[in-house]
């Protein structure tokens, strides 16, 4: 059975666990190595799952692990809309 954790980047729980075992065992490194939270949803669908797996594997609490830096924009914005903005 495949447990899909990140639909944007097509990542399974097994792949996340494998990356943690390789030593990418802090949330920022895990994000970058697996690509989780870097797709179109920017983590809205997967960050909590990744956190749970990392917490279970390392024994660290969610608070200890923390979350990835949340980067703008909240939702994807097309370039033509941004380009119509006013320059400071």
């Amino acid at each position, binding site marked *: 059975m495949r447990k899909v954790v990140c639909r944007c980047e097509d990542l399974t729980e097994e792949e996340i666990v494998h990356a943690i075992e390789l030593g990418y065992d*802090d949330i*920022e490194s895990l994000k*970058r190595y697996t690509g989780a939270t870097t797709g179109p949803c920017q983590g809205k669908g997967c960050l909590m799952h990744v956190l749970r797996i990392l917490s279970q594997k390392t024994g660290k609490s969610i608070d200890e692990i923390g979350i990835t830096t949340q980067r*703008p924009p909240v939702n994807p914005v*097309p*370039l033509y809309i941004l*380009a119509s903005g006013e*320059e400071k």
Partner: protein
Amino acid sequence: MKVAIIGAGIAGLATAYFLAKEGVKVKVFEQKFLLHGASGRNSGGLTAQFKDEELIKLALRSEELYEKLQSEIGFNFLLRRSGYLKLAKTKEELEEVEFQRRFGLKLKLLHAEEVGEIFPDINTNAFKFASYYPRGGVVFPWAVIWGLAKGCKDLGVEIHDFKKAEVVVENGKVKGVSAGEFHEAEVVVNSAGAWSKEINEKLGIKDERVIVKEEICVTESIRPYLDPYILHVSNGLFLSQSMRGEIVGGIVGKSNGGVGSSFDFLVRYAKLATNLVPKLKGLSILRQWAGVYDEGINGKPVMGFSKVQGLYQLNGFGRNGMSIALACAEKATKEILNAQLR
């Protein structure tokens, strides 16, 4: 010999790797996670189109080292030599071409229309001339760092992440570093990028380097579409397609400090990018971020031992770290080994 390296970016890790190959005991200290600094935040452009002989030579040597290290370590850096395009509004902005050709760079000086043959969707009214370097291209900076870290670990190098290290000096001589606990070392390498200035100033070493902030953003992924890395020297716009398919781009930075992302940047970038490549209009920006880098005087890297005995400077790469740092690390390794022989 024992060497402590502060900063696990491309320069620090490559130096650790080269030193370990020579049998040196190396420990690397990174204040945050690997990829936290400029090596993890840049857009991966690779070129040798510089205005200085030393930089050109370092870039050419780095080209060779990328090939060598990929196979030696057994890690794919996701490097694509699909050309580096410097665009400009005036020919004067590209007059460096003749100088660069003297060092064997096979450059093409093109008119805007000719660039349309390399990349048909480019707006040939957004610039007049271009310098095209076919050997340039794009590398995935994260893969370079993962690969170098793997190479280091395979050779027994200790990499301590989340460990902020301070140089320990006694009677003007390096004793090692303190990072929670003391680690003895005859040589300490300051390869902490934008943070290396702070390290120097703490030791009373005068450091005139400028810290620059640069912002970048990525779009959603699309099929392979844009081959060369593009830098518009007249307005600072740069963009390329990563091996993941995203269009990665930004605007050359200014020295104003901070690492925050700004909405103003997104607007400026969107205007410049869609003017240069109108078809990008419909693509969405997924994420933006900022990074800081340290620029040496006259754009040159800072390499060599400093007035604190045993402290080796390896910083000041500016925007050119991915293009030149491997060769700088090789040079640093030689100088550290030679100093030890004396």
